């Protein structure tokens, strides 16, 4: 019996992978480490919204005028929802799977985005890049007057926008009253 097994195993080819000494190829569409394209990411936080384990977080620091997109690979479940939902295709899952790390800090990815500032020096609630992206897309619309008006509003901070909106409503209701500080 055992002799039979030995003969059989001699005839059998080697099955063990020589893994650390030679690469272990991944299948097509393997979902590995999440990577951000630093030139395409606009810091909208859509990935953080859909991330089931909150591995991607948005940290707002309006005092410093930055928004930080923070990815902790140690909590990522590699589901691919960030890649699926990124509006500008800046998130990609690579083939990388050798992610073992001796410290927690090495598993963190931080992208710092500059928050936009309006004409009066107020820090806005979206980043410079979001504004640029929105302007780019607005330019493809047909209605020039709407584009101009929307562009104007987009360059104001939230409180300025509220003031401007109230002013324009007042103006339309009682011509001659609008324009004051509101």
């Amino acid at each position, binding site marked *: 019996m055992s002799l039979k097994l030995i003969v059989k195993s001699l005839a059998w080819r080697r099955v063990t*992978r020589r893994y*650390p000494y030679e690469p272990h190829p991944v299948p097509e569409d393997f979902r590995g480490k999440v990577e951000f394209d630093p030139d395409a990411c606009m*810091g909208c936080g859509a990935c953080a919204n859909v991330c089931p384990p909150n*591995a991607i977080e948005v940290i707002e620091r309006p005092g410093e005028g930055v928004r930080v997109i923070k990815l902790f690979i140690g909590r*990522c479940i590699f589901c691919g929802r960030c890649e699926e939902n990124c509006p500008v295709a800046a998130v990609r899952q690579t083939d990388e799977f050798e992610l073992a790390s001796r410290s927690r800090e090495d598993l963190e990815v931080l992208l710092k985005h500059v928050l936009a500032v309006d004409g009066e020096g107020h820090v806005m609630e979206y980043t410079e890049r979001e504004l640029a992206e929105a302007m780019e897309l607005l330019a493809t619309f047909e209605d020039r007057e709407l584009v101009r008006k929307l562009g104007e509003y987009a360059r104001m901070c939230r409180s300025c926008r509220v003031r401007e909106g109230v002013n324009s409503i007042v103006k339309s209701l009682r011509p001659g009253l609008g324009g004051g500080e509101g």
Partner: protein
Amino acid sequence: MSGPRSAYEVLGRSVYLLHVDSGSCNGCDIEVLDALTPYFDVERFGVKLVASPKHADAVIVTGPVTRQFSAFLKRVYQYLPKPTVIIACGSCACGGGIWHDTYSTLGGVDKVVPVDTYIPGCPPRPSAIIHGVLVALGVLQQKVRRVEKSLRPSALKTLRPPTDYLTYKEVLNTLKRMLGYRLAGRVLKNYLSLLERGVGREEAAREAAGGDERVEAVLKALKEVVGGGGR
């Protein structure tokens, strides 16, 4: 057990590994088991599973550490002969994973015992586990590094859809629904770049599909949607 020397040099023999399941879904456990099979064979490196913490030189912990189990994990740590190596295997063990803020888990092994090496993955592949164990034992070097980037607003590559934005979004969503997001992104990129080069719609659909009849049919059905976009 940090420093330039590997665990083998410190111990002068093979490393005995204890596997502790702290409330995992069994995904990581099965991958750990897979790493022991002849196909991956972590025993090539002398790593052998043992049943008692008193015999173990290193521990591989899977699972997010449930509240019920945390006391036992502490006890396992007390029983281990020191120095020891603790390996957190899987996203749950590393940072709590999907359970990081539930009431019934502590969210990560490092909340209870000190961790030497983290192996992210949900679950990590067997080869990733082998890599992680060898990193923990000081044989291989880790590959990931902390990334911290301040992004300049001027370096932005804006998304320039070839048609108007709403049409582009509509086409992309239809494709995602029919083909899944990965295939949709890839196919649409090819298709649009072919259209941009002035290839006819039928021909572009055939070429972008790359012999996949299903994709070709979907792209041909898209014709009306793209046709409204002006290009």
